């Protein structure tokens, strides 16, 4: 009955649950939106993906879910468990969406349906992905709300999204992802619209549910400072490519790519006086020969 055991049943112990290889998402512009991305997501681990807007972070996530905008030309490989998702039809993708992989978004005011009560939205998510009756669905929903520390469940369930605070709405969104029973959650700037204290709470919730439910999380943010606190691994994206990838400690301690160094330098830190305005440099280098992109070999996770 519990989520943890149901996902444990078809868990693949040795190997990533989602494996993206050489993904290219091309809209026919001068440069593809995603230009040869390779990433792995492992159950129970959080991969932080940093980079400025337009670097292809969200597009990588949306494409993995089969939600790339129409007109996208997609090549490469996206393997979820043992199923290839590039080139398959919407029917297959919609089976994977929800129960296999799901996504939470920023701006919950727009991302939650404004005219439908939270109760109905969560129940719809349960019903779409699980075979259960009304009582079981309600139980799942209440469990998920407790998981995200929304203990006043009745009040939340009877609310419309606009009646919740930003932090509460984002937690409802996380609860919605939990009731789907997905193993992979893409979180697209989940705390960007929130103030700093609420941001921390939401991040801690994401860390905790990832641990408790052995979720593979891809956490997208433009703020590498937010990511370094809760991610197991970091990937830095620039112009559609992963320019640096490694364990969070390694990347933070010894960034190899100049873009990563620039991102890190842009974070104000206690004890370091910020004496000058840090401007993001433009990197007109050959992005195909990257020093650190493959620093983690694929077998090194065991």
């Amino acid at each position, binding site marked *: 009955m519990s989520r943890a055991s149901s996902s444990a049943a078809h868990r693949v112990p040795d190997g990533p649950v989602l494996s993206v290889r050489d993904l290219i998402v091309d809209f026919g512009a001068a440069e593809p939106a995603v230009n040869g991305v390779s990433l792995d997501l492992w159950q129970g681990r959080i991969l932080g993906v940093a980079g400025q807007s337009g670097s292809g972070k969200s597009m990588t996530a949306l494409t993995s879910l089969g*939600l790339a905008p129409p007109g996208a030309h997609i090549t490469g490989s996206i393997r979820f468990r043992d199923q290839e998702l590039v080139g398959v039809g919407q029917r297959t993708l919609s*089976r994977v969406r*929800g129960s296999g992989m*799901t996504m939470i*978004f920023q701006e919950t005011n727009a991302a*939650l349906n404004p005219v439908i009560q939270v109760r109905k939205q969560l129940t719809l998510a349960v019903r779409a992905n699980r075979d259960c009756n009304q009582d079981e669905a309600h139980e799942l929903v209440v469990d998920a709300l407790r998981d995200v520390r929304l203990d006043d469940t009745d009040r939340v369930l009877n609310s*419309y999204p606009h009646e919740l605070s930003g932090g509460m709405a984002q937690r409802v*969104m996380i609860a919605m992802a939990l009731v789907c029973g997905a193993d992979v959650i893409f979180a697209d700037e989940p705390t960007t619209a929130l103030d700093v204290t609420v941001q921390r709470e939401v991040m801690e919730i994401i860390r905790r549910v990832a641990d408790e439910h052995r979720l593979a999380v891809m956490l997208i943010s433009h703020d590498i400072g937010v990511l370094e606190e809760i991610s197991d691994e970091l990937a830095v994206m620039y112009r559609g490519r992963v320019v640096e990838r490694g364990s969070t400690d390694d990347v933070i301690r010894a960034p190899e790519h100049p873009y990563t160094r620039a991102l890190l330098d842009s974070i104000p830190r206690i004890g370091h006086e910020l004496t000058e305005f840090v401007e993001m440099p433009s990197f007109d280098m050959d992005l195909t020969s990257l020093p650190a992109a493959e620093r983690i070999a694929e077998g090194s996770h065991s």
Partner: protein
Amino acid sequence: MTRVLIGRLRVVVPTILLITILTFALRVIIPGGPADALLGGSDNPDTIKMINERYGLDQPIWQQYFSWLGGMLRGDLGTSYATGLPVSDVIGPRLASTVEIVGLGMLLAILAGGAIGMYAAIHRSTRLGRLVFAATGIGVSLPVFWFATIVAGILGVALRILPVNGYTPLADGLVPHLSSIAMPVVLIALPSTALMTRHVRSTMVAALESPYVRTAWAMGISSRRVYFDLALKNAIGPVVSFMPFLAATLVGELVIIDVVFVLPGLGSAIVDAVHFRDYPSLQAIVLLMSVAVVLLSLIADLVLTALDPRRRKEATT
């Protein structure tokens, strides 16, 4: 809800008052009067004076307006210049065909326009979806007086499938009744259906491309639920607020349809009133139609408030 109603009434009542002023001004601005209508060009000053006194036209204009407005409020629509009978006797018998044809036309526009608009929105990137959308452009711009005449000529005169004129009441049998209104209803609904299709399509496309629908896809919600539960629920508000406009479009076509199919409706009553310079009848009909459209938009506002929790909240705080 009461608060919303009161708030709207503060707009609706002045609007209706403004309509009464404009409607009344029709008579003042347009030349001619009962004397012309009744005497047919005779210019005996005494007779004209007598007639004007009889209809109260010798009084100052503002006084005429208030006695006319008072009559309207009491339900006294005035006296027809053309027949000397109360205007309500002129309008009453003509309401049946108009209410039926405009009502059914609106229903048809809502159902057909809603269904086609949904289809065009869901299939917006396919060739057929785009073709349907392009076709509505023709529907909007088709001149009804011309198209109605052609259709009546083909179906009524050449093929003799449907009667080409007249209104057979329901009392004379269902089939003759329906066949007498079939062409008028379909033709009066044609531009409104096209407008409705475009409107439903654009609101549905906006809903389908919204972040919350993307969330629903990401959560694995089935396409049937996304289209018919989630997106439709968000699209229904703009569609409801479109209803008064739809009604106004239908009423606008009524004159043409009544004339082409020789129907005893308010549309032909307007034409008759203009023809005989029967201003009291004209004023009453124009006022009736305008007030109906204004009241419809009031109802639409109240329905919207009931549908949208954000508006409900606004209404209670």
